[in-house]
Every structure is written in structure tokens, then in C-alpha cells.
């Protein structure tokens, strides 16, 4: 049975094509591109909310997109235990919908951050099962609001429920900081309690091809379809 997936496009999404190519190349299955005004989602195994600046991010990152028509079906899709992945702006949208806890605030240096970052997995889930313990992944980030924040109680429960999927770390030979954007506990990605929804700031869809600086982004799709 082939793996089916979909990418949602909002006005201002700019990583939707990248996510489509990522899914097409790695899943070999059919990938739908769904416009935000469509009323329903086809039945698929994975939905990606891509990066970008949906609706210009003028209110709060992801706030307007979280009210889009398609979001009802995205929630239904997740409630049916299917996979939902929010990358960058997609992560911000997931927190705005309330499918993931916490919020993404401005980077601690108050500047856009576009560079390679290094992450490793913290707690195991279906999105990172192909990644070894302590394996350092090199994946680009490109965000202005990627600084993950939540209150202490939420942080405790994220840890107790093993919802932290990825954390930033130091790369070999790199003089970059361990925690690039000031996130609490250097959190780079979290899941919901059921672990079928992942939000992450780094862009795995920019690190999978042989000409990319790293192919570590492959591991997420490999984890899901293995």
C-alpha cells in the first residue's frame, strides 16, 4: 500500500513546493497539494503544514492560518491518529490551533536566523525512530519566531509525557551556539501526547537531496514509512 500525503498551501506559504518535492521524492507515493480554502482533505497518511509567512504573519505567526477553512479537516485528520507535521510556520500554526502546546516567540537575538543548525532527538516517537540516540542531525533553520516558550507546568508535562522530539545541540567543528534561538530547554520540536503530531522549527525538506549540505532530513520520512 503506498503512502499518501498532502501539503496545505496558505497565501504566503513559501515552502509548500519544497515540502511537495520532499514527500514525492522520499515517499514515492501520491502527494496532494491542498489550497487553504478547500473544505475537505482527501484521506492521507501524512499532512504537512509548510513553512512560510501565512497571511503575511501580520497578526501573530500562524494566527490567521489557524482559522482557515481547511483547518477543520486537518484537526479531524489528526484526531483519526494520522500523522500531521508542521514545519516552521507550520509549527507556529499548530500551536495557534492548539494541537500543540506552548508558543513560538521571537528569537532571543531579535533577528531572523537563517543558517544550519544541529539537533538530536530527545524522546523517541514515530517521527524519529530511525534516528540513533545521540546522533547529531544538520538541518537548516530560517525563522524569526522560533524561540519555543511554555510555562513550567507545561514543560514538566512535555517531559513527563516524552513529547520533546528534538533539541538543539552543538555540531562538530561548529562554533555555533548550542541553543540557537533561546528556546526553553533548547526545544526544537515537540509532539502532542499521542505523538502523531510533530511541530519543528528546522526544515528537513531542505536537507534530503544529494546536493544539499546534509541529507539528515530524510530520516524523518524514513522513520514514518519504515
Amino acid at each position, binding site marked *: 500500500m503506498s503512502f499518501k500525503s498532502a501539503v496545505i498551501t496558505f*497565501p*504566503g506559504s*513559501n*515552502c509548500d*513546493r*519544497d515540502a511537495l*518535492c*520532499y514527500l514525492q521524492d522520499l515517499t514515492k507515493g501520491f502527494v496532494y497539494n491542498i489550497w487553504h480554502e478547500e473544505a475537505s482533505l482527501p484521506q492521507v497518511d501524512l499532512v504537512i503544514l509548510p*513553512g*512560510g*509567512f501565512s*497571511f*503575511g*504573519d*501580520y497578526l501573530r505567526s500562524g494566527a490567521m492560518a489557524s482559522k482557515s477553512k481547511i483547518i477543520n479537516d486537518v484537526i479531524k485528520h489528526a484526531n483519526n491518529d494520522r500523522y500531521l507535521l508542521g514545519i516552521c510556520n507550520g509549527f507556529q500554526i499548530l500551536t495557534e490551533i492548539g494541537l500543540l502546546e506552548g508558543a513560538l516567540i521571537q528569537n532571543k537575538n531579535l*533577528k*531572523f*536566523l*537563517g*543558517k544550519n543548525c544541529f539537533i538530536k532527538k530527545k524522546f523517541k516517537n514515530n517521527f524519529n525512530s530511525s534516528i540513533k540516540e545521540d546522533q547529531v542531525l544538520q538541518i*537548516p533553520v*530560517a525563522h*524569526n519566531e522560533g524561540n519555543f516558550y511554555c510555562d513550567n507546568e507545561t514543560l514538566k508535562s512535555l517531559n513527563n509525557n516524552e513529547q520533546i522530539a528534538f533539541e538543539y545541540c552543538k555540531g*562538530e*567543528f561548529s*562554533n555555533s551556539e548550542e541553543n540557537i534561538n533561546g528556546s526553553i530547554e533548547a526545544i526544537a520540536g515537540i509532539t502532542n501526547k499521542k505523538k502523531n503530531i510533530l511541530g519543528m522549527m528546522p*526544515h528537513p*525538506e*531542505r536537507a534530503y*537531496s544529494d*546536493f*544539499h*549540505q546534509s541529507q539528515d532530513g530524510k530520516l524523518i520520512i524514513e522513520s514514518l514509512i519504515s
Partner: protein
Amino acid sequence: MNEELILQHGLTLDEFKIIKNYLNRDLTIEELGIFSAMWNEHCCYKTSKKWLKKLPTENEIVIQGPGENAGIIDIQDNDGIAFKIESHNHPSYIEPFNGSATGVGGILRDIFTMGARPIATLDSIRFGLIESEKTKYLLNGVVHGIGHYGNCIGIPNIGGECEFESTYDFNNLVNAMAVGHVQKDKIFYSKPKSIGGLIVYIGSKTGKDGIHGASMASDVFSEDDEDDKRPSVQVGDPFMEKLLMEGCLELMSSGLIESMQDMGAAGITSSSVEMASKGNVGVFINLDKVPLRQPLSAYEILLSESQERMLAVIDEKNNLKVKEILQKWQIDYEIIGEITNNKRVVFESNNKKVVDLPVDIIVDDAPEYDREFYMPRKRKGKDFDFSNIKLEDIINTLLSNLNYLDKSWVFNQYDSTVMGDTVKEPGQSSGIVKIHGTQKVIGATTDCNPLYIRINPYEGMKYTVAESYRNLIACNINPLAITNNLNFASPLDPNIMGELVLSIDGLKTAAVKFNTPIVSGNVSLYNQTNEIPIKPTPVIGMVGFNQDLKKINSNKFCNIGNKILVLGKQLEKKFSPYLLQDQNLASNINEYNDLEELDLDYEKKIANCVLEMSDLKYIMSCNDISRGGVFLSLLKMQYKDMGFKVNIPDPINLFCEYSAGYVIEIRNEDLDNVTSFLSKNAVGHFEIGEIIKENIVINSKKFDYFDIINNYHSNFENIIN
């Protein structure tokens, strides 16, 4: 019409007389506004036209040369590359964030207006000395603005340059370049195809931003007494531009549009006049139909430079389909006029013709000046005393000078990997992106050596073009064509005019030799404040191509133990301008020796050898040699835990500049083959050393590896904060 009003509009009284004699009647205020917009330096190149005509603009791969929104070259199959560079200097000084952001927005529109999807941006930015708080403010604002616009719309920034020098204290330069991919059979031009075609306005509503001389215009002509005199710097909305880009590209790929023109400088005036002139037709526009943000007079509508607006010509039968696509993208759209056959530009407002002019007088009769210019004085030879200069001191001065340091602080604020096709990010010899869905790659770089050009405009410009050329060659990218941005001070000064004339001549000589025609460009004059002219800064944007992404050279060291070779011809110490300047040996411009003549044949010969050795896989990594000499080139190549050990009789020569200079890394086993290949081709070369682990050693003297590497990567941020 009173003289003061004419002069306020930037026209000379002689120019006004030409217009009046031609029309044989008085002008309306709106018509005066049109001439003000169309006859200024920015739109009609009245000072530079005579000289720009001398540039080579055609060869077998040029599809579109200068004169359209962007130049286009052929990269085989059905693929074309559209590219252009444009300045936003003055707005970026007044309001750095919006000034630079709209610079990026404008150049992106030039690209997608032609049916091309933007695939990369670059920028060339120059500031005064960092000791000034104003410079820090400008640097922060400009970088933020460039990043904000490009990041939001989602086009990767793949390179550029950033220089600090005192003549830019009150005139910072912001030149933005964009590169787009177009299918050769789907290129759109500004020339309308048929009489009777509908002129449609697409995009943001028109407001008061960017009206030249806004205060004058609104004081005298605004019907709105409560006018708030908005600044004349345009405000950008990258989200709107993203929608506009997607909407326009969809209209074009659906074949619903005949022609398109973006509303850039001089807004609706310039875009409609261009259309009429290109098509040898007339235009009729009803200004009452123009979507407005606020009540505006006809004069203001004509001159507004509100951003994110397009003018297109469509066939009436496609009207509904056009409307449907634009509604999907939530873009404003209005039919505002039509293409006529009378070769006149007619604007109507409140049922009154406010403008009725023949196209010819606006475009063809635009003034062209042959301004006086002086040749630079001959330079006396001068010797410099290097005896007190120690190796450690040079390294320390380099590592505390912003112009040499790793500029990650700048480009980490740019998204360089969006679109997923980036092969080389900023900070390397050139930026490289893949053509989506193919193995073909495009390389691009921007360069200028203002100090060289002030010393000798003709030779200096040759060096500048050669540096761009080397940047591409070092990556195994075949250089194809050029876009240029000529930034100069006032051409009314014959010395400055001489720099303009001679540097264009140098550009021509180099471009002919390299077979890299100039396909687009921009001129920015009068960059001077308080009698301080900027250094001549004709920036080159060069684009090149390789069929196969796997053949691209690394610019970073690959393996410990590999040999390092230096190719090319070193300039003697006393003929290395940046060395003299940055070691404080030459204190004023008259002290420098004249530049050594650059041998373009030699430059080309070495380049061909580098390309050949790259294809043969002899070259493991390569970098060009420019300001900072071999030493800086090696430092840029440093990677992971690798360092270098070099031997050179006079170590000061490590910092000299070069002609046709490259550093290459090769495997030990290839050394004999490579050296005999180079000797056979009479290419100057020597083995300077090898790659070693975690050390920098010069003539057996060990330097603190981690100290140098850390300073190189982090001092930029330390200094600017």
C-alpha cells in the same frame, strides 16, 4: 508656468523650452510631472546614455538585452535566465529598513514581470565607517530590510558583498540583484500586441508613498488640506508581493496576458509610457478608475511610487478568467484604459484630459548630454617601506577590519535555502542554485573594487569584472553575462564624469574579452553629500552556468595532506592597493602607484585551465585571490579541523593582490600531472604548502589556529556591536 515650479521638477529651463516649443502650448501641471519623472537621470539616463551605448549587449546566448524589465540569457533546452541589479541608495539612507526592502521588492518585480520565477537574490551594500552610530543604524536597518522582504516572499539570498569605507558615510549604497528562471517560449515583454487591448491595473492600491517631492506636490496641488506629508520613501509589503507574484505567474502561464510592465520608479506614468513606446502605439488611461488607498489628485496618482503594482494588457475576451485568478490570490484588479493607435499618452481625470502628449517627445526626444570629463592625472611611481611591517601585525589588522571578516552576521539574517535548490550559500566564492527539476546550475556574484577604480578607472574596472569572473571560475561555473549598477557621485564634476566614462570603457573591454555581454543595468548618480563624493562604485553582477551540478568545485578544504597550489600573477607589494590602504601605508589617494595593466588574455587562459582541471577532477577545492591575498583566500577555505602550512620567501607577499589568482587544492598523486599541465599551458603557479590538522604554519612559524579561526568568524559581530 513659473520658473521655480519648473526647477522644482528637476527640469532645466532649456529642457522646458524644448518641450514647450514642441507642443506649442502651455503644459498642464500633470504633464510637467510626467516630464519631471521621465526626463530625470533615473528614467532616461541622460548623462550616461552616450557611453552605455558602447557596451557589448549581444551574443549568441542573449535573448533580451538592456531596455526591458530585465535581461535574459539562454541556458539551453527551453530554459532562460532573467536577471538584473538595481540601486535603492537614497531611500535606504533616509529609511534603511523600508528603503532596502522595497529595493528587493522592485527588483523581484522586474524579474517576474517577464514571466520568470525568481530563484535567487544577491546584494551589494556599502556603508561608512562603523565607528559612527549612524552607520550601525544603517547597517542594521538595511540588512533587516533586505532579509525581511526576501525571507517573507521566499526567494533565497545566495550572496553579495558588504564593504565599509569613509566616503559612504553619508551615502550608503544598496544594490539588489535578482535572478529568475523562465521558459524560453513563455517570456513576456512590455510591448503590447494589439490595438484595443485592455490596460489592467493589478496589485496594491495607490497611495501617497514615493511621490517625488511629496511636500511640494501636496502643498500646491493636494485637494486634501489635512495632508500628512508622508515620507517619499515607499513602504513595502512582501506578503502582497508574494500574492502578486503567484497571481501574475499564473496569469502568464495560463496565456491570459499579452504584455506586462511593473510600476516601479515614476509608477503609472513610466509604465504606461514604456508600453506605448515599446509597442509604437498610444495609451488611454482613466485615472478615476485607479484603485486608491486615499483621495489623491491626478498629479499624485501619476507620480505615486506605491509598491506591489503591475500594469498588464489583456484581450477583452479573457477578462473574466483574469478576474477569477486574481480573486483567488486576493489581488485588486481594475480595467483602467486601453491601447490606442494614435501614439499619444492620454490620461483623463474627472472627464477632463489632464495629459495629452505624443509618446515621441517623452521618450525619443528625452535629453542626452555629452558632459565634460577629465582624464585622470598620470601617477608618479612611489616606493613604500615595508620593513616595519610584521607578519603578526598584518594578520591582526586583517582580523580587526570588517572588510576581511566572515560576514555571517549579515547573511544569517537571510533565508538562503528556501526553495530547496541552493547549492552554495553566501560567504563562498559565488552563490549557486540549481534549476528546479534539472541538474543544471546557475552561479552568480556581485563585485566592485572602488579603490582600484578611483586609482585608475579603466584598469580598475577591468579588475572588477575579472574578480567576478574569477569568483565563478573558482566554482567551475562558466561565466555568461553581466548586469551592472553604476554608482557615482555628481557627473557635473568632470573628474567624476571621467571616472564614469573610463570605467564604462574598462567594462566594455573586459566584457568583450570574456564574451560576457551586459544585458541589464542601472545607473545611480549624484551620490555625494557635503562635497564628499563616494568612491566610484560600478558594481558588477555576473551570472554563469554549468550543465552538471556534480562538477561544481568546493571552495572549502577537503582533506588533510592535500597540496595547495597558487596560480596566477601576484601584484608587487607597492602595486597592491588594498594592502597599502589597509596597512595604512598610503594615506591619500594621490600616493598610490598606478595599477598594473591587467592582461585579460592571461586571465582568460588561466580561467580555462581551472575549468579544465575541474572537469578532470584534479581540483579538490578552489578559491580566487582578491583583497587580502593568498592568506585570506586560505582562511576562507578553512573547514572543519583543517588548517594549512605554507612556505614563501617573503611572507608579506601572502597579502598581496593578484591578477588571475587562484588557490587550488589537489591530491598528492595528481601533483605531477597538474604541474606539467600548468607548465605546458604557461600558467604561472607554485606549490605553496599543504593542508594540515588544526594548525596554521607560515615558514615554520606556528600561529594560534583557534584564535585566528574564531576571530575570523566572530569579530564582525564583535565589532559592529
